[in-house]
């Protein structure tokens, strides 16, 4: 064997050994990520009930049907509504609480723990507890829903309603509970971000005579921008895909008033057995989420330049 052939074979042996080491990871990634990804596209162009061996190819028919499916587009709007609510109220609350806990206040560790409890609770449990709070029924002349009981006991009878089955309030209730459940994540990330800001910047601003408000706008916010963008992206992805709370609180009802894309996908698969259509929904929704994330990433780049 020539020296060249020996070198070549040794190099290939090295490659093969390396390949064998990464093979398990590649196989797992292929089976659980790459294959389902392409299979979803494949199924989105087929008509399939989930059981039959026949899966006729229908090209873009499922996407065409989806384009005119008003319930689907309503569900997308509902997801946007919940997301907008979370982006504003949830993150504003998380930021305000993080600012408070960043200062030298008493029992701040206790508050940190308290604020982080909602995110670690099971979504189903949270859903059922809030369902009980927002319940609209009566027994023996008394409201057994906690909120209605409170409202009527303080004389605000006109505000009493069946919060979750009233089409005007149901989606907002879901958005509020979702924000309550999720603000702890933002709180932790904001707090971590705030603690990385160099204290000397605040001291310099104070020496220059900057007010608390100006310090906040000119020091805290710019320094926190990368964290804010990450929290926004995570909030968007988390809120757009919220569904466990919805299933446990309203089961998509009343009518279609709290339906969101993920519940539509679930119902198309398990309810009406339209697996192909459900995959088309999944692909479309995935594209929407990717589009949103890319837009935010671009915004982040531009803000960095500013």
């Amino acid at each position, binding site marked *: 064997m020539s020296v060249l052939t020996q070198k070549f074979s040794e190099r290939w042996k090295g490659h093969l050994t390396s390949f064998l080491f990464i093979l398990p990871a590649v196989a797992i990634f292929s089976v659980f990520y790459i294959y389902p990804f392409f299979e979803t596209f494949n199924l989105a162009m087929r008509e399939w009930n989930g059981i039959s061996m026949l899966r006729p190819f229908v090209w873009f028919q499922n996407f065409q049907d989806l384009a005119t499916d008003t319930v689907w587009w309503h569900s997308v709007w509902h997801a946007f509504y919940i997301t907008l609510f979370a982006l504003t109220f949830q993150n504003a609350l998380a930021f305000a609480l993080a600012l408070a806990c960043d200062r030298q206040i008493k029992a701040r560790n206790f508050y940190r723990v308290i604020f982080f409890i909602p995110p670690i609770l099971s979504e189903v449990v949270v859903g059922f507890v809030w369902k009980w709070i927002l319940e609209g029924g009566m027994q023996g002349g008394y409201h057994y829903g906690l909120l209605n009981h409170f409202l009527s006991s303080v004389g605000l009878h006109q505000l009493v309603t069946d919060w979750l089955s009233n089409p005007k309030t149901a989606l907002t209730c879901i958005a509020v509970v979702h924000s309550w459940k999720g603000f702890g994540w933002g709180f932790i990330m904001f707090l971590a971000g705030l603690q990385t800001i160099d204290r000397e910047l605040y001291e310099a601003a104070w020496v220059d005579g900057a007010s608390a408000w100006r310090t906040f706008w000119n020091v805290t916010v710019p320094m926190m921008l990368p964290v804010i963008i990450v929290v926004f992206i995570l909030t968007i992805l988390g809120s757009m895909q919220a569904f466990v709370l919805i299933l446990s609180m309203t089961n998509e009802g009343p009518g279609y008033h709290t339906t969101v894309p993920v519940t539509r996908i679930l119902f198309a698969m*398990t309810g009406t*057995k339209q697996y192909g259509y459900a995959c088309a929904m999944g692909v479309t929704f995935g594209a929407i989420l990717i589009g949103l994330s890319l837009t935010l990433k671009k915004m982040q780049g531009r803000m960095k330049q500013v």
Partner: protein
Amino acid sequence: MKKCVLAGLTAWMIFFTAGCGNVHQGDPNAITVWHWMADRHEAFLQLAERYKEKTGVAVNFQLFTPSDIYSQKITAAAQAGILPDIFGILDKTSVIAEFIKSGFVLNLKDTFAENDSEWQRRFFEKALAVNAFEKGNTYGLEPGIYGVPLDMTNMQMVYNKKLLKDAGIEMPPSTFDEFVAMAPKLRAIGVTPFVSGWGELWLIDCFSSNYAFNIMGEDKVMATYRGEVPYTDPDWIAVFRIFQVMAREDVVDQGIVIKRNKFAEQDFALGRAAFAFNGSWCVNVYHGMNPDLDYGVLLPPPVSKRYPLFIWGGAGSSFVINAHSSKQDKSIMFLQWLTEKDQQKFLSEATANLPANRYALADLPPELADFAGGMEHLTHPTLWPVEEDAVVKEKFTKGLQSILIGEKTPQQVAQDIQAAKTRQVERAGARRR
């Protein structure tokens, strides 16, 4: 080094390929049963123990809950070819038919016919009918009996005797008008007149179909499903109007449209509601929630005298045998034993469900006996010659929710459903072309 890599790789291959075979085929003297019935699991385990003592065959009952997760599991298992020896299909007829058509379910027609149909004769006719497909069925299936019923169920109304008495109501209603007229009296004592889990679409569908049969008769309902009668027909409007009346006259709370049956059962058991619409399994559930609850059973009060009111019922749960199982004979023998009088009686007593075996009806609790009294009024979508398209059904049930919350009128809902029906019929026509 090489040896280590090879050993690691082999172990890894074994680990991954272990899940690819049919894991249930291992022990030749054991059969595996998948089911979703959490309330019956303990009783099943006891019966399995008895069966093993008697025959030496181990029956491995595996419980998967909740039921919708179970349904997804068997669908995935069918695709992967790892269905157990015996399993249940908890879904509508078209789905059961698809399992059969795809060759996953064994036809038991010949087995039932053996020994002068001894096995077949022990069941209530309606219980077996749910699993039977006649010649010329719309699903194009080979005629046969594909499942073994375990118990019977039917959907009726229940009423709280004490609450009715407190409201000064002496007798339960015999007509829908009487039922509606009771609402103010019940509201006056601070209870909700009627509750049901109408956040679950199948339950509101079931209630509405009782009245559809009562108002227009089975033939016209089936003609609608075939696309020959529109949902805008006055008879259908009359069906939808029942829900409008119930909402307008305060018979139901608005919250009924998002209520799951579990919570509706709680409301009735805790005396928050005077009437409920539920299945015969509720006897067990109510007993667990409130052992002192004193209640009676009645058929939903009819709205018309034109046609009889039919209620949903039949086989509550059934088992089928995997057509690819290597232990079909053992599976059949176990199901034959499970549906014998003694085992059926044990199951009925342990789980407060109506037995599928007609000879095991004795000694039922009074409420369950009342439910058994409604057996001659049974119907079920699985017994109907046609099935409504699932997309139309969704529009139908969501439309009823819209009426209950006062968002839409019966006419608007009828138009919405008819539009969905027309679209689905056109789509089906295009597919056929």
